[in-house]
């Protein structure tokens, strides 16, 4: 079975731009979570979605938003990019939202 997939793998943006990151969960998983991992630090929770509804939100500004589609895939959007948004963005899926999470390979975002 395919694991969690994320696209793109890398991208470079400039300050003030907008970015959309995509995640496809493992087949049958209904929950998707997003994490930000700044270089040298542990991942920080951004959002969790279950059955297309937001179940949790971390301490991130409103420039960060996300949604989950009927096929359970998800998008993370970041507006007005700042240099500090440069990070590895990880997506994780789980069957029911409260059980083991499986992580994707991440999207490396560089903001110049």
């Amino acid at each position: 079975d395919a694991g969690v997939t994320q696209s793109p793998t890398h991208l470079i943006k400039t300050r003030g731009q907008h970015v959309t990151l995509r995640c496809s969960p493992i087949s049958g998983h209904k929950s998707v979570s997003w994490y930000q991992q700044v270089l040298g630090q542990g991942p920080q929770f951004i959002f969790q979605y279950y059955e297309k509804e937001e179940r949790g939100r971390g301490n991130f500004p409103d420039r960060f938003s996300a949604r989950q589609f009927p096929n359970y895939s998800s998008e993370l959007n970041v507006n007005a990019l700042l240099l500090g948004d440069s990070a590895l963005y990880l997506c994780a899926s789980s069957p029911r939202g409260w059980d083991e999470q499986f992580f994707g390979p991440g999207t490396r975002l560089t903001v110049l």
Partner: protein
Amino acid sequence: AQSVTQLDSQVPVFEEAPVELRCNYSSSVSVYLFWYVQYPNQGLQLLLKYLSGSTLVESINGFEAEFNKSQTSFHLRKPSVHISDTAEYFCAVETSGSRLTFGEGTQLTVNP
């Protein structure tokens, strides 16, 4: 709020030596505890988890961790490490829902 402290940012060891990666957590409620491993340019892989029951949990590749409630610790150990164990290791705690709070990570480097 829960927090996780990984007491060592870097741990260099020689091949076949024992290793312990230390993790302490702070939480006022029952927790689920996890160790994840991250190889360079990859996402997170679950190494082992404590949900309930026996306080000693083991992984398939020789790692083990012991949940100590009185000391709020969940240290990771391996009696004999291999070069291939070189990676970043993250301790994480989950309380409500499936939101994970991670430590800052410990870089384990196994030298020949």
